[in-house]
């Protein structure tokens, strides 16, 4: 419970309508099942929730927190366990009232957004100006800002639009102690085109491979790179999902690529990367697609040998897309992809020949509307990330993840999805690759509450074999760091020091980051 006087101070910052300590309201911020390793959906119930609408209000709240030693954490769209309070007695800042696109700079290809602008909204507006944004795999309903500043996340257009952590330009940041810092050019009042300097780039303190998950203050604005969108200002569609009917623009092509084995998938991926073509690239094994899109069918047939062998044979399946700015570019890219497939013994399915499915796939990939299908089979999912290095390095990790996962499928702890549900994308024309092994389960079923063990086993074995670092176990927080740190140059020590330098009192909820220390 918060002291009444302290509560009133918060109230003065945001106004009485924008703060609550009603238990029923607070429970809305206490419940999380995604990536929650415990059987209970409830985490700590915060003492209050505030809805600031400006940087000044965020700063005001943080200052009250500092005066009275109250912990705080902000979230944007609030999906996943890392948004839950690490403690009771703390205040949650729900940033949903900070929901403006402040600027889309058409020429210089970036957008300046507040925390509660979702990828979907930004994409819709960017397209009107011939631009597009990278949407992370978590889906179009996630915050653009959060993917840039606070969490991790990768998506299907990474081949052409990069990784959002690397797409960050200027950032506005309310430090745990209440000062407002604008990283890069906006810090000197020079516009939002750069997030680095003068001198060392504090973007490296702001976040790493993962964001600080609410543990380093509150990010209130971010400028993020946009990319060329050669399509129309708006693609009008009828329908909601499977029934979507849209006219796929002529300069956009979608393919499904099939490879006979892992090696040829890898070789082709390197070829596509070197050729610098492609707009969308994503490995989507057949078992995964079937489980997500047709869970009923999968339930009925997964046990049948015929079904299994049919799906095994198309498990090295890649969704590939081209968005070209000119007929010449389109012709060139098409020619290359066909050649790459031919040289690597692959099969190319031109989705343009299957127009109904093409519409569905267009939105599915361009806008990541497929993401939430991960919930369809059992209502919940988790992932053990098995790689974030070269494309080749993922292959043995995929096998490892699949093997461990299969044991749990066999004992009924996970839904049978053919085990290989390793989806992944390549970034920046194959600078590096992301592989992520998904597991689906029904967390309401007492037998299906063991996903965290799969994660742990994968991580342990990867470390033992010195194969790489799966970013499992929800990716962040002291427990993870204690496990990984000793194998990774004791990076955890630096994080504790950063935390100490920025937040000596540990008020910005350390649960998803780390405690201050030496």
């Amino acid at each position, binding site marked *: 419970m918060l002291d009444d006087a302290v509560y009133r101070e918060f109230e003065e910052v945001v106004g009485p309508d924008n703060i609550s300590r009603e238990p029923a309201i607070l429970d809305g*911020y206490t419940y999380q099942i995604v990536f929650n390793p415990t059987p209970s959906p409830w985490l700590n119930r915060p003492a209050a929730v505030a809805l600031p609408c400006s940087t000044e209000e965020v700063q005001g709240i943080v200052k009250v927190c500092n005066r009275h030693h109250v912990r705080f954490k902000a979230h944007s769209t609030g999906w996943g366990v890392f948004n839950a309070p690490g403690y009771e007695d703390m205040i949650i800042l729900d940033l949903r009232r900070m929901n403006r696109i402040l600027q889309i700079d058409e020429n210089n290809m970036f957008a300046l957004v507040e925390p509660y602008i979702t990828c979907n909204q930004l994409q819709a507006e960017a397209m009107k100006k011939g631009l597009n944004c990278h949407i992370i795999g978590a889906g179009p309903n996630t915050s653009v800002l959060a993917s840039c500043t606070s969490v991790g996340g990768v998506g299907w257009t990474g081949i052409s639009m990069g990784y959002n952590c690397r797409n960050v330009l200027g950032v506005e940041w309310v430090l745990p102690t209440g000062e407002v810092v604008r990283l890069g050019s906006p810090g000197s009042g020079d516009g939002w085109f750069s997030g680095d300097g003068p001198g060392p780039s504090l973007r490296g303190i702001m976040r790493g491979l993962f964001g600080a998950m609410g543990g380093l203050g509150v990010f209130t604005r971010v400028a993020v790179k946009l990319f060329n969108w050669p399509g129309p200002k708006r693609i009008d569609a009828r329908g*909601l*999902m499977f029934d979507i009917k849209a006219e796929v623009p002529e300069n956009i092509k979608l393919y499904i690529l099939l490879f006979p084995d892992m090696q040829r998938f890898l070789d082709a991926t390197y070829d596509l990367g070197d050729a610098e073509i492609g707009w969308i690239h994503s490995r989507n094994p057949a078992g995964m697609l079937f489980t997500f899109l047709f869970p009923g069918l999968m339930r009925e047939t997964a046990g049948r040998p015929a079904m299994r062998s049919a799906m095994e044979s198309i498990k090295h399946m890649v969704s590939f897309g081209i968005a070209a700015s000119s007929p010449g570019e389109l012709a060139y890219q098409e020619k290359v992809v066909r050649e790459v497939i031919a040289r690597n013994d692959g099969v190319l399915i031109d989705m343009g020949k299957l127009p109904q499915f093409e519409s569905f796939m267009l939105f599915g990939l361009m*806008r990541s509307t497929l993401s939430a299908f991960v*919930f369809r089979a059992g209502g919940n999912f988790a992932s053990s990330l098995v790689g974030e290095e070269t494309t080749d390095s993922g292959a043995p990790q995929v096998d490892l993840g699949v093997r461990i996962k299969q044991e749990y499928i066999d004992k009924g702890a996970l839904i049978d999805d053919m085990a290989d549900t390793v989806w992944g994308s390549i970034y920046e024309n194959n600078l590096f690759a992301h592989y992520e092994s998904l597991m689906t389960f029904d967390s309401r079923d007492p037998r299906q509450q063991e996903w965290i063990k799969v994660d742990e086993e994968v991580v342990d074995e990867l470390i033992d074999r010195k194969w790489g670092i799966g970013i499992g176990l929800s990716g962040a927080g002291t427990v993870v760091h204690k496990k990984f740190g000793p194998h990774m140059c004791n990076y955890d020590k630096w994080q504790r020091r950063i935390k100490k330098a920025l937040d000596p009192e540990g008020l910005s909820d350390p649960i998803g980051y780390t405690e201050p220390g030496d």
Partner: protein
Amino acid sequence: MALREYERDIRGCSRCSICKWVPFAQIKSVDCATVCPSISRYNFHSYSGGGRLILGLSLLEDRVELTEEVADIIYKCVMCGACEVSCKIYRDDIDVLRVIEELRFACVENGMMLPEHMMMVDAMKQEDNVFGEPKSARGDWAKDLGLKDINKEKADVLFHAGCRLSYDEGLRGVVRGAASILSDAGVDLGIAGADEACCGGRAFEVGYRGELEKYAEDFASRVKASGCSKLVTPCSDCYGAFKQLYPMVGKELGVEVLHVVEYVEMLMGQGRIRPTVKVPLKVTYHDPCHLGRRGEPYREWEGEDKLKRPSAFKMSGTRGVYDAPREILSRLPAVELVEMERIREYAWCCGAGGGVMEAYPEFNSWSANERVDEALATGAQAIVTACPWCERSFTDALEERDEDLEVLDLMELLARSLGSEPDA
């Protein structure tokens, strides 16, 4: 609490908040991306579809008590069903709207009703309408139209005006127009006049399930007694009650139920209604919730595990009435339809539903104004709808602003195009 029966649904919520948004493929701008008036207006997560599921779990687990404050959250929802549409795109195993209804039943059963709703239900008990207007005046709207009295003579089609159109004098033109269009087309039409009663739908939505059951039972016996083959209503609210709520409480009317737009479209197809007068008007069409997603016929599924529920039994909103009104509009000479961004299954609600019009007029008005803004952005000269509750909301909202936007029921527009605009 029957809320318990939905515990599995509730525990399936991933808090993804997809319920707050227009289905993704249909998001066309930053401003018209949200679909839920409640969360958009009140902001705390508990005001969203998913937040209401979580609230249900809090109640089930006795983490919170059902207090007046909690009831206030529960009732600040227009029950438009948009959250359900967005959620169901991905989920087979969560019936968001059913849980929202259960929360309201719980309020009523535990005496946590809102006074405004108690008054409405008292009015219904007394006068068989939601306004407490004299029962005897219910049929006054039909004066001089020469319609058959179903209590005295048989008719093929029973025309049910509904409370709003029976008593809202500002909407007289709508109901008279609708009835005239049908009878002019040669439909054998009868009305129940003063004996027409409320459908009970609005009582149900504010949590008085028992009231709906009473009305449904009564209504079923009247329909049966009338011997009609079709029940036609110009009120989407009533339509939704007949199509979705009555079957849900186990009451079937045993006749074909049609909204007047469905019937008119059919008659147009048969050439029995031929609009010929040019009405040069750029219009946008507002899908009433209870004609669209909440007018979807209910189908009971008896299975245990909703993950296995066949999609035919899934209330996804896609089987509502969306095409008929647009088809009619397309047949009106010189009328041009310009669509808003949020339409069909994902239309933004006018704000009148779920007892909000009665208890939270300011919220009703806010929601209506959002929609009016969206309509204005299309450049339309008129916003056309097919539900008197929507029409009332928009008309009231526009009263306070200086905008050039006409609010019309589709039947009013059709009447113009037939050259037979009746006096109100």
